[in-house]
């Protein structure tokens, strides 16, 4: 069965629901003291994980669409990407407002001095660029450069879990899992990549012949 535009409408509606639900849930948790007596770290972590989870889902769209020959699914990538941006924005807002309590000078110092925050900020800058250029009119105007810019999503996918890995005190297993998942998803793309298969056949020719 080929998915139609009508299906796409419902899929998008579902994505909206699933993406927004955790934010409402977090608010309820915090208001009912379900996130601990001082939920600052909880909120920062929760929104960061939210961005990362959405990013993983986003990276799964293309391989799935290709595998099941449902090209229409590609159209969900834009909204998923924007939700990554929403969660990342909440993550940074929580850090600045709840943890640093709007000490902007401290924020600027930390951004420059701390490698894991530098990596996080690079991720956020990429997200801002991709979010702004997700406007259809801009996409048309940018032509081929649009795709070049949006290939940065792969850099983002690598850096985001590294930022997570680097930020923890000792609990490295969970961030390591994310790094692994992202690498697998990127490898999956390499397998599909025409360039790579060309390269592989070139290697074969070189070493077998």
């Amino acid at each position, binding site marked *: 069965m080929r998915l139609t535009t009508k299906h796409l409408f419902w899929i998008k509606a579902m994505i909206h629901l699933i993406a927004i639900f955790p934010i409402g849930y977090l608010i309820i948790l915090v208001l009912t003291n379900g996130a*601990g*007596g001082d939920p600052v770290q909880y909120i920062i972590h929760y929104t960061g994980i939210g961005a990362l*989870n959405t990013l993983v889902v986003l990276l799964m769209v293309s391989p799935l669409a290709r595998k099941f020959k449902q090209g229409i699914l590609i159209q969900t990538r834009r909204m998923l990407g924007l939700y990554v941006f929403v969660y990342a924005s909440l993550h940074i807002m929580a850090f600045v407002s709840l943890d640093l*309590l709007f000490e902007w000078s401290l924020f600027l110092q930390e951004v420059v001095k701390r490698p894991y925050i530098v990596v996080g900020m690079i991720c956020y800058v990429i997200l801002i660029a991709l979010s702004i250029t997700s406007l259809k009119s801009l996409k048309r105007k940018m032509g081929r450069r649009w795709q070049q810019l949006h290939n940065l999503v792969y850099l983002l996918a690598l850096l985001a879990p590294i930022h997570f890995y680097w930020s923890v005190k000792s609990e490295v297993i969970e961030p390591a899992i994310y790094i692994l998942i992202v690498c697998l998803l990127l490898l999956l793309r390499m397998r599909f990549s025409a360039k790579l298969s060309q390269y592989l056949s070139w290697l074969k020719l070189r070493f077998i012949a």
Partner: protein
Amino acid sequence: MHFHKRPTWDKFKDSDVTPEQVFNDRRRILKQMGFVGASALLSSNANAGIFDLFGDKKEKPQFLRSDLPHSKNTQYDSVLNGVLTPESKVITHNNFYEFGTAKSDPSENAQGFNVEPWKLVIDGLVDKPLTLDYDDLMKLFALEERTHLLRCVEAWSMVIPWVGFPLAALLKKAGVSNKATHVAFETLFEPEQMPGQKSRLMGGGIHYPYVEGLTINEAMNDLSFLSVGLYGKTLPPQNGAPIRLIVPWKYGFKSIKSIVRIRVTDKQPPTSWNQLASHEYGFYANVNPEVDHPRWSQATERRIGEGGLFSAKRINTQIFNGYGEQVAELYKGLDLKTYF
């Protein structure tokens, strides 16, 4: 005459809203839906069977705390620079990786922790080794209340009224040999009771049992305190029941919890965080705004006080957490940047 009438907005029957089990179990249900994090999908710990989603699980009973008779020692109150952190926050925001690495994990996972019977051994270079049971901890020494600052290495802090007795009193009772240079502490190792010790994922990669140490001079300083209670009652497990160390001029991780052994030695003992990342956590771990953690600043701290999320304050961190008058002497001639 007064009739009880349902207000017009109350058109829902109780059964129309979320079933109680679902509500009580909301956190785990959400985890199973996959919103929380990759690890949550793997961490089906003690209380998380995948198939009992709608099982009739009851809310776990809270750990029972009892009142502790004590006197008040206010001699260190002049250091305090803020109001008490409310008890509800002190007992729900904890770093105690034996019960999980999130701040809210210990209060959720430790309520069934068993502290009776307890055995605390004091041995090593002492005249007469001691073994204290639970009652000894509460009754052997006159208990006093001291309010201290707690500065976490993660740059948050609290003001907490502890109940307990000076570490020196216990060491004097055992009689410290003059060969002694250090004191080593060890937390209970019982994976059946402490899920973090059972699973690496839950316990954050620390080598258990958790160990800590002080120099003998630090240990004999009057500020070094063994706490058996807070806010006038025995400690809850998440805060280190039944007995924990308080060394308020050092980062919180030095204040080891649920102690089963205190060993007097003539060598610097290994300490858990130092073993894990020696360039980030030194043996001394004295609070010092001049020496940053490699990944974050220690110049300021977020004080957790009364009120909601935005009422916290960012304040300047003091050298030795403000207790310089009592302890600066101990580090004369020591380069605090090298021996952090």
